[in-house]
């Protein structure tokens, strides 16, 4: 019996070691260690042994079982790993194939710029105000210190609906509307983005375009504050090393008025094609709110002051994205839109 057991051990360990697959291994487990396996069969003959032999043979049998089980476990682990490796190898894919097309759309570049501008000014505590696109002559001109027959009306050729109603030529009427609605509350601190219209249609003019107006009226608002606010805007919009330059200009609703240039973000001010070799790019108009405008809107210009500014969104979009043709913005070619 002892010999039989040793033979099982020897034969078993050889067979287990030679097993090629997990199934084969399972067969061998049943063959040697199963309920009806070889080991069990041999042990059934224990009864025929002498009492003194039994514990010795029993111990031997247990040792052999342990040994075979270890052998089985090791082989099982080995085969498992091998099978996994094999599977992983079979599952190779071409990871350079493109991914599943997940669709995402595009906002219009003007919307992106508008959102950026709004974000900057709301961050500085400005409220976003709206006004109508079809506007009264009164708000578009008169309340802004541009009476009838004022030569400044020439600067802005208008689309008229009736003698008193027109398509707004700028977002500035929102200034007057908001002030009239808020007086005497302070501060008035708004930006007003929107569509505006002028009778011009050529390579560099679109009959409809977008502006953002800004207005801050409060006690002790100075021209120096205007400079600081615009510098902060320009640096957030165009980069933290930008400079601004204010030049005297003329708008009927501000005084003093200033045209604002930003140092060229293409060349840094050395002079290049973008800035026409001047180092500066004109980006917005601004000034201190004219006392007549404050007065007409119900504020006492002796007690409050304010500044206002206005910028063209198309121009900023073109500068920022390097778009060289205004018309692209309104052609809405999807190959253009997809780039933003």
């Amino acid at each position, binding site marked *: 019996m002892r010999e039989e057991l040793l033979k099982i051990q020897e034969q078993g360990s050889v067979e287990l070691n030679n097993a090629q697959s997990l199934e084969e291994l399972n067969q061998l487990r049943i063959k040697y260690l199963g309920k009806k396996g070889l080991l069990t069969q041999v042990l059934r003959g224990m009864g025929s042994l002498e009492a003194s032999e039994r514990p010795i043979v029993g111990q031997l049998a247990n040792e052999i079982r342990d040994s075979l089980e270890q052998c089985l476990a090791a082989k099982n682990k080995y085969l498992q790993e091998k099978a996994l490796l094999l599977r992983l190898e079979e599952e190779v894919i071409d990871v350079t194939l493109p991914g599943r097309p997940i669709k995402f759309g595009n906002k219009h570049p003007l919307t992106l710029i508008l959102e950026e501008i709004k974000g900057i000014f709301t961050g500085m505590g400005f409220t976003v105000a709206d006004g109508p696109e*079809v506007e009264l002559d009164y708000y578009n001109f008169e309340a802004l210190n541009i009476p009838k*027959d004022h030569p400044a009306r020439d600067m802005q050729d208008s689309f008229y609906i009736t003698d*008193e109603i027109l398509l707004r030529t700028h977002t500035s009427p929102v200034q007057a509307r908001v002030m009239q609605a808020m007086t005497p509350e302070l501060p008035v601190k708004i930006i007003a983005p929107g569509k505006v219209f002028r009778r011009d249609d050529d390579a560099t003019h679109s009959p409809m375009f977008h502006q953002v107006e800004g207005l801050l009226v409060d006690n002790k608002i100075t021209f120096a504050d205007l400079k600081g606010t615009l510098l902060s805007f320009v640096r957030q919009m165009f980069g933290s090393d930008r400079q601004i330059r204010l030049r*005297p200009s003329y708008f009927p609703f501000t005084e003093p008025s200033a045209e604002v240039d930003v140092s060229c973000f293409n060349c840094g001010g050395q002079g290049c094609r973008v800035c026409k070799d001047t180092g500066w790019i004109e980006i917005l108009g601004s000034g201190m709110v004219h006392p007549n405008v404050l007065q007409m809107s119900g504020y006492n210009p002796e007690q409050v002051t304010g500044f206002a500014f206005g910028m063209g969104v198309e121009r900023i979009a073109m500068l920022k994205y390097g778009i060289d043709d205004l018309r692209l913005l309104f052609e809405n070619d999807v190959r253009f839109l997809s780039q933003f």
Partner: protein
Amino acid sequence: MQVSLKWLKDYIDLNLSTEELANYLTMAGLEVDSINKLGEGISKVVSGEILEVKPHPNADKLVVCAVNVGQENAPLTIVTGAPNVRPGMKVPVAIVGAKLPDGPQIKKAVFRGIESYGMLCSAQELGIDPTGLPAEEREGIMSLPPSTPLGIPIQEVLGLDDEVLELELTPNRSDCLGMINIAREIGALTSASLKLPKISHEGNNDVIDQMASVEIVDSDLCRRYVARIIKDVKIEPSPLWLQQRLQAAGMRSINNIVDVTNFVMLEMGQPLHAFDYDKLEEHKIIVRRAKENETIVTLDGIQRKLDKDMLIIADATKPVAIAGVMGGFDTEVTSETNTILLESAFFEGASIRKTSRKLGLRSEASSRFEKGINLDGSLEAINRAVDLIEELGAGVAVPGKIDVFPSKPEKVVIKFRPSRANYILGTDISSQQMLKYFKSLSFECVQENNDLFLVTVPSYRRDITLEIDLVEEIARLYGYSNIPTTLPQSTMTQSKKTSIQALEEKVKNTLVGMGMKEIITYSFIGSKSFDKLRLKDSHPWRNCIEIKNPLSDDQNVMRTTLIPGLMEIASKNIHRRQLNLCLFESGNVFIPQGSNHLPLEEPHIAALVTGGLGKAWNTSFEKFDFYYLKGVLEQLFSQLNQGNINFIPTKNYSSFHPGRTAEIVINDEVIGVIGEIHPLVLEEYDVDQKIWLFELNLSPLLSGFSKIKEFEPLPKYPPVERDMAIIVPEQVITSQVDQKIAAVGGKYLIQYHLFDIYRGEQIPKGFKSMAYNMIYQAQDRTLTDKEVSDIHNRIQQELQASFGAKLR
């Protein structure tokens, strides 16, 4: 305004570089747009005289000229192909070694066997705009005045040793439409000293009063009229210096008299006009409005119809000029003219502006009147012109003047507080410094006390009427760049957006997230669009705001729908072979509220799909259909927190397919439409693929959007899932079945959805099979099998009762 530096130096001592000067002007608000360096790149081009012109022995189109360039040696032989050369003509000659702005160096050359020692030049070759020249010189060689000395560098002859600044003036600074005032401005900025011309006094009026009379009838449009008379007039070409001045300013030389009037206009900003005195009926000048249907032939030979809003100058019988706009042909100064009457007047800008617009006539004079000229400058300007005419020997002044000046304006005296200026600017400029600035501008200044000046502004600075205007002058002279940069010391504010702004943003973000591209089109459309959309005459979209002065018929009304914009863009893209499109636009439509009221501006959103989702290596091409777009819309509603939405089939939209269109209804209000575009509309837009589109009004979505979502506790008890497949007649629509299921299912039916529609084998014709998946669940316990079955069966029975639905 074109400013010749050579000319400018007549009035001011300049020792700045041109670039420095340009920078001073730009930073003081007189923006220099460009600097044009005349004669740049020209060397060794001199004045010469053609002595002889002989045909070329070997070439028909060439001639051989002998040209004297003033040297002692023999004349130069020069071969040219220009048609306009003749002996005695004085011309610009580029001698061997010369350089021209855009050309190579001139070398000795051989033309068909004849050696040529230079080149005769055209205006263009010298970088001169040829528009003002006689026709033959525009094509050929430029001719120089007969009096030109020989061998002189051409820059000197033509005044090309000059630089011209192009000033872009703002409307308030019309004073700088005169050279002298520009010089004054530079004087204030740089402290350079001025050299103004001496102007003689007109003498007493005895003679002139006998010769002519002036009457202003409409003094609301003409506030001053000064006349002087010149006799023994000799009309001749102007001397070179005068021609050069005008040319540098972009004007053409005509004759000595006209040139003097233009010169003085450019110098002092006051337009002048010269009449042939003898052709003025009764030697009368009457300034009045034209009579209805009066006409005049203007200088350009065109007969113009006048109306009673136009101011004219008339003699005793007829109009002789359109005031401030253009003179009349009949009274024009010609070579026959003996005596002239000079006019220096002030016409109201608004009236001139209207007249010149109506007639489509704009001139240097009219644009100056429009912007406003110096009321006090009329006499000085006319006296200056008379001086110049006498200086040129072009005539003899009749002493005296006629000066009709009905109401002289008060001097403008402005109270100015230095503290106020510092308050507004955020500066700390001393009163003494401010006083200096005013003095440099020739503003008279009386210091009343420490913080009050009385400032009298010269009459040519019409833009300054208020204290704030003086504050701007201080800021300009102090320099905007010297003003500090600070941030406002203002109360803390919260930045707000209106709920409609927030809603629009959310809509855009959601649609973009679903693969849609945003477009932006004009708020106006062509009224033709309504026809293209096949709208009935009574359709509400046709009730729109019309633009009185549109640029074209494609932009003549304010849009009442976003559909035309989307359709146009889709069509354009399809024609560019972009066949798969997902587009949307967010914008206002305009609904009339009566002609005296502003329209209602309604925020709309519209979206369009056509084509399909492109095929990739692992997906197939997915064609768009109605349900794709509806899916987009449903997702949008879900993102916007909208419930209770219904889609009601409709045939009322003639732009859409009558069987594939639904009205979008929310809380019983129709807010928009979704459907397939009608095939005939597609044809109108020249599109041969199907398009699906929705448009809706955003305002009704606001209340749902603004509502804060309320949390629902997660279920604690298990759900029971059951399916139900029913066969119903085709005409039963899904929304009816859904409503019934929801109503009968009650609160335990927490979810149901249609997961299959089947037609075909085993289903009779005219019927369809609809398969629903239902989930039953209670919040407070586990539902028993019986409870679920009861509800499920009841639903089935009700469906059978209502729609004849049979279990499949």
